[in-house]
């Protein structure tokens, strides 16, 4: 027994000491970079698209050219699944040692990633880059936070109105030219053909709903100098919300089914022939072509309030940024330039149909492929972007706007009350993000 006591006491002490030593505080990683090496391996994370082969080909060509012109530099490209990108990228910020040098990221995440301390400020290099002068202003806005640039746009994505030519012809209806006409056309179609949704809408389809708000002159939020203040409950925004939510109901898209739908679900409904119209992106083209409605549809810009006008679309898309923790900053910026340069973007358009972010490249793309015409027109009419605040990521993730739409379409709250609640939540997020 004496012996055991002699062992047990120090052992217990050791355990306690171990606990207290490791348990001071939760981990915080140091993402500052260590030097700027001119040779070595650069690691790149790009998104794994559906049908990734053509993208891979274009990237391989750009990488080969880069390796040729930079002696001693090697590039390792990894394609990460889109579904788990958020976790992967967060993990990369948390563990700089195993993080890549360059990442592709969705442009609504820019401000959040900057606040997380993950992306490097490349304003100087971007300003000195001759090709960047032709960058579309909305695309540039999507890499800019507080006047500094944190990456280069890779492609833009905008949404427009897909409609069934056969259905509209049969009913003798013209494609709608204004928002009011869009709504009445949708209801007319559903009345004539009860099996079809007139216009497929989703309660969780935030980016399909935004054009309705913007078309009415409403805004998601206003800049107040230091931060943002929500404007979702302004009179104009409410008009847009009312217009969008009026599309839910037994006369177009029954709330019981449509309240829960997101963007993909509405496009799927259209592609499978369950809807006469849908708001889809240029990136939805492939999915619709693969569906039952191939050859029986056309695309026009989503109409605005005034007859013949275009509703401002949300300028989605992806960017490529350099991680702050990269130990090859100069090389990484060069690689970013060759991955997002005009040549690569033109090839990427041919391969994947991603819209280029340079105005001149975009124009020549539209000439080559008439399909993108309506999308280019939509961009040209002035697309809009979400507030460039780190709070946006959180507002998006905590489903503030889907909750608002769903509360309205399920009849739980009226437009005024639901939009006031949403505004309150957004303001809390803006205030926390500073």
């Amino acid at each position, binding site marked *: 027994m004496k012996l055991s006591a002699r062992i047990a006491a120090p052992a217990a002490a050791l355990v306690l000491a171990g606990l207290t030593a490791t348990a001071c505080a*939760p981990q915080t990683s140091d993402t500052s970079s260590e030097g700027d090496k001119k040779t070595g391996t650069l690691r790149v994370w790009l998104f794994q698209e559906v049908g990734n082969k053509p993208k891979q080909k274009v990237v391989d060509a750009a990488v080969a050219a880069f390796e040729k012109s930079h002696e001693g530099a090697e590039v390792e490209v990894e394609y990460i699944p889109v579904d788990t990108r958020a976790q992967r990228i967060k993990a990369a910020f948390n563990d700089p040692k195993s993080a890549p040098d360059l990442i592709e990221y969705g442009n609504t995440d820019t401000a959040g990633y900057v606040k997380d301390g*993950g992306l490097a400020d490349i304003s100087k290099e971007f300003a000195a880059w001759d090709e960047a002068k032709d960058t579309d202003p909305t695309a540039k806005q999507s890499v800019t936070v507080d006047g500094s640039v944190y990456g280069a746009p890779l492609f833009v994505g905008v949404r427009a109105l897909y409609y069934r030519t056969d259905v509209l012809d049969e009913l003798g209806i013209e494609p709608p030219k204004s928002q009011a006409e869009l709504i009445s056309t949708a209801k007319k179609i559903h009345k004539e053909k009860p099996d079809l949704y007139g216009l497929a809408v989703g309660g969780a389809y935030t980016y399909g709903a935004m054009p309705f708000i913007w078309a009415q002159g409403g805004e998601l939020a206003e800049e107040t100098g230091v931060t943002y203040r929500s404007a979702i409950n302004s009179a104009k925004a409410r008009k847009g919300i009312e217009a969008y939510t009026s599309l839910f109901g037994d006369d177009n898209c029954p709330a019981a*089914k449509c309240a829960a739908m997101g963007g993909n679900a509405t496009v799927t409904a259209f592609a499978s022939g369950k809807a006469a119209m849908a708001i889809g992106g240029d990136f939805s083209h492939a999915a619709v072509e693969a569906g039952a409605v191939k050859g029986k549809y056309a695309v026009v810009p989503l109409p605005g309030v005034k007859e013949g006008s275009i509703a401002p679309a949300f300028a989605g898309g992806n960017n490529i940024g350099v991680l702050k923790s990269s130990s090859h900053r100069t090389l990484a910026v060069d690689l970013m330039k060759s991955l997002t340069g005009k040549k690569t973007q033109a090839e990427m358009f041919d391969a994947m149909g991603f819209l280029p972010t340079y105005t001149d490249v975009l124009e020549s793309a539209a000439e080559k492929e008439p399909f993108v015409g309506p999308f280019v027109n939509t961009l040209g009419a002035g697309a809009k972007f979400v507030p460039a605040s780190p709070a946006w990521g*959180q507002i998006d993730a905590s489903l503030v706007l889907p909750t608002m739409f769903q509360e309205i379409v399920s009849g739980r709250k009226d437009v005024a009350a639901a939009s006031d609640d949403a505004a309150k939540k957004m303001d809390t997020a803006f205030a926390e993000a500073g």
Partner: protein
Amino acid sequence: MTADTTTPRKTPVGPGAGGVTARPPRRRPASPARRSGWTPWLYLLPALVLLGGLLVYPIYQLGLISFLEYTQAQVSGGEPTTFQGFGNYATLFGDSQFWQVLLATVVFAAACVVATLVTGCALAVLLTRIRAVPRLALMLAALGAWATPAITGSTVWVFLFDPDFGPVNKVLGLGDFSWTYGRWSAFALVLLEVLWCSFPFVMVTVYAGIRAIPTEVLEAASLDGASQWRIWRSVMAPMLRPILIVVTIQSVIWDFKVFTQIYVMTNGGGIAGQNLVLNVYAYQKAFASSQYSLGSAIGVVMLVILLAVTLVYLRLVRRQGEEL
């Protein structure tokens, strides 16, 4: 029980069991009273080290983080970590949604526990009263449900109840009724799924318990003319009490922490968050919105609630004279 108590140990029933008498209790040689207090601790040490590393330390971290401002920006070093005191708890308790979610969780968990226990016990009794083939079929069906991963089960159930393609609506003639649209129908659907995948545990455990009850006792009861319900209430249930306690506590803990079913079947909490339960709510806060500190605070609250429920329950049981 220590060796000092002189209860004779019963040997297993075997041939001639009635004649076996207890062996005389063994006595420890010399001074049993004063022994080194260290010995039990030495034996406990490996378990304690393991528990300390795997249980106490994570809980300690959970508690610590709940007092800090700790979001993605702090984790990846964009901003310094700051101490918030009870700030996260104040935010949480000031959020009316939290109280709604808490209430929904308690009611939903209670309904699940009751449904699971009633179904499990009823089927366990049924198992003892049917012939071998149907018993085997019921066992296999239950084990199949038990072995199905929660995410698979939930996905299949959502498909079965799909308004457009699901067979259930077709069979019941419900047209395109959407189960997940209304709050109560969505909760009811999830409850059925939870019941489906958790009753087998109760059933199998209770069935094993019933099998261990000496048949003479049950025979005596039925000879006295007791009904099946009466036998359950006055004979089986009291004898199964320790088992029932364990399955109840297990069920309470499981159903209070239900995550996968709600997350998958109601698409992350239902229309406008109507089907959120505490665990999904914590996930939405902690991981979807990267507010790790707020998520930790919710975790601590859950831990406290579950500990309290378990302790109160054990206390009640003990008061009725049951040793665990």
